[in-house]
């Protein structure tokens, strides 16, 4: 600090420069209606900006893609009652149930979507269309462990001892795996006591418990763990980055989570928001989004699956996926989280 002196004049110039630049607008707004659409940050954000903006512009609308994780989208809308910062949200059924319960989203009018009939009935939600579906399973490193058959294997085969990483109940991926395990080891999807007992009997499984899937991807590539619960997307990305990772559909079935677009209550740019939803389920957009790096499973019937996607899941298999009851999960989630945390902390 001793010799690191800025003169006041320099400092004043610097300050004036910063202030002047801040006065410039962040971006130039489109003249017509602009939809403010929340999406997940990263690839999803870039993909939607690239694939959907031209479609909306062709129809005279603008699109602002606002990156935020699902829980942050919800928190932000909840904190601004009646005055949502987004016109549309993007989330899976777990968060959708919370959004409906708190009266944050509204039912949509399907007649305003030209591409509505291109969706299977399963994807025509009354609270908005399903734009893709994430299929979950088990990721493993073939260099370190044999191919697991399913969840039971991970507990009963000593080859996996100390090499599996789990996450707490705050993660959607984890909750879906645990409800499956509750069916296998207990009496049904909500018999979580059976799962807790299972972990109590296998304390070595609790060593590598972390907070979220993205931490697991880091640990996986550093060789700290060899198995974790994942979506096909996680494994596709690990593979595309040159890592030795494989995806397994558990013998008992793969839990799946659709991703939906929802219209917020009090959305200010309704026309643009509908145009955005329509664009997101259009063939033109999904043909782009099914390619790497997004590799989203297309929900529009007219879009052909790529070999890359088909390697993980085909359209026929969709009906065999397990779709958890999120209303029941949300009811129990707080208690499950606390029990599990206490269990992990020992």
């Amino acid at each position, binding site marked *: *600090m*001793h*010799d*690191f002196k800025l003169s006041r004049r320099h400092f004043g110039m610097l300050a004036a420069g910063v202030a002047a630049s801040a006065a410039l607008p962040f971006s130039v707004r489109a003249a017509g209606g602009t939809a403010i659409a929340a999406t997940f940050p990263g690839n999803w954000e870039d993909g939607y900006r690239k694939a959907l903006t031209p479609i909306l512009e062709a129809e005279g609308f603008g699109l602002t893609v606002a990156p935020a994780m699902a*829980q*942050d989208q*919800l*928190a932000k809308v*909840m904190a601004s009652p009646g005055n949502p910062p987004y016109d549309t949200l993007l989330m899976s059924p777990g968060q959708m149930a*919370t959004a409906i319960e*708190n009266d944050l989203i509204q039912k949509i009018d399907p007649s305003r979507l030209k591409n509505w009939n291109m969706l299977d009935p399963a994807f025509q939600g009354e609270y908005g269309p399903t734009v893709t579906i994430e299929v979950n399973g088990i990721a493993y490193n073939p260099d370190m462990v044999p191919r697991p058959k399913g969840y039971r294997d991970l507990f009963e085969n000593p080859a996996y001892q100390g090499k599996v990483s789990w*996450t*707490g109940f*705050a993660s959607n991926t984890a909750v879906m795996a645990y409800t499956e395990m509750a069916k296998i080891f207990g009496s049904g999807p909500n018999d979580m006591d059976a799962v807790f007992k299972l972990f109590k009997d296998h304390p070595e499984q*609790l*060593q*590598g*418990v*972390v*907070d*979220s899937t993205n*931490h697991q991807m*880091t*640990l996986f590539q*550093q*060789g*700290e763990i060899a198995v974790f619960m994942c979506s096909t997307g996680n494994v596709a990305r690990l593979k595309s980055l040159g890592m030795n990772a494989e995806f397994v559909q558990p013998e008992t079935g793969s839990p799946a989570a659709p991703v939906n677009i929802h219209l917020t209550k009090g959305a200010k740019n309704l026309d643009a928001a509908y145009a955005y939803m329509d664009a997101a389920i259009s063939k033109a957009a999904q043909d782009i989004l099914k390619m790497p790096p997004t590799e989203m499973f297309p929900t529009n019937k007219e879009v052909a699956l790529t070999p890359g996607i088909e390697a993980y899941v085909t359209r026929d298999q969709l009906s065999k996926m397990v779709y958890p009851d999120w209303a029941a999960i949300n009811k129990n*989630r*707080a208690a499950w*989280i*606390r029990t599990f*945390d*206490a269990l*992990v*902390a*020992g």
Partner: protein
Amino acid sequence: MKASGFPYVVPMLLLSVAFFATPLAVLVGFSFSGPGGATVEHYGRFFGDAFNFRVLVSTARLGLETVVGTTLLGVPIALLYWHSGRTARQVIIFLTLIPMLTSNVVRTFAWIVILGRQGPISETLMALGLTGSPISLMFTEFGLLMAMCQIDLPLIILPLIAILSRTPVQFTEAAQVSGAGPWRILVTVLLPLMLPGLLAGWILVFASTSSSFVTQAVIGGARNVYVPQLIYREVGTLFDWPLASAIAVVLLISTGCLLVAMTMISRHRRLVGHA
């Protein structure tokens, strides 16, 4: 002269009241809100669970341990700075700034490497024959403490350097002339000189460890849970905002008490120093 300082403080006080006290009031309001009017139910829920109380205690403990660790590492660096020439001093400043210039995500990533099975710690222990198989310090409290101490170290060094850089080298001359050895000078002259900086550093370090959560979550894993992680989960996963607010108020009060205690010590010492 004594009263003339107040107008200078007014702008920051007003800012604090308008933009901090009002959100805080909302928070406190939330924490007492119930369907049938005011209630202390949420505080009851928090303290009713022994696990939560343990989390609160380990949060304070991690904070204090990090304060001790950063002090033990920071004071020698500050002394190195004090005894160095102009160029070396600038190098030390630069090296102190480096960790802060590295994003939290990246710093945490580096610590995963260091603490992991194939990391330098594990390899060294194996080479020395202290352990037969690779060990991992990931998800351990000790590993987390090592990382927190490094990450927060600049917060304690910067105030110390700010003081030392303002102090002429001749400051210790009187003591030297009177024949005091270097250790004596350290204890009787340099440490008292650095004390305000140490206290500031302790406050910054403690506040930082008790309110952040990325490093704790990744390095500590789910086995080591701290209060900010509890709050984050209540806010974003369970949407139990009254409980989240109650936890935040408890955190604010408990860390606030510790900080006030630290500040009072500093004021008291100044009193002594001026007498």
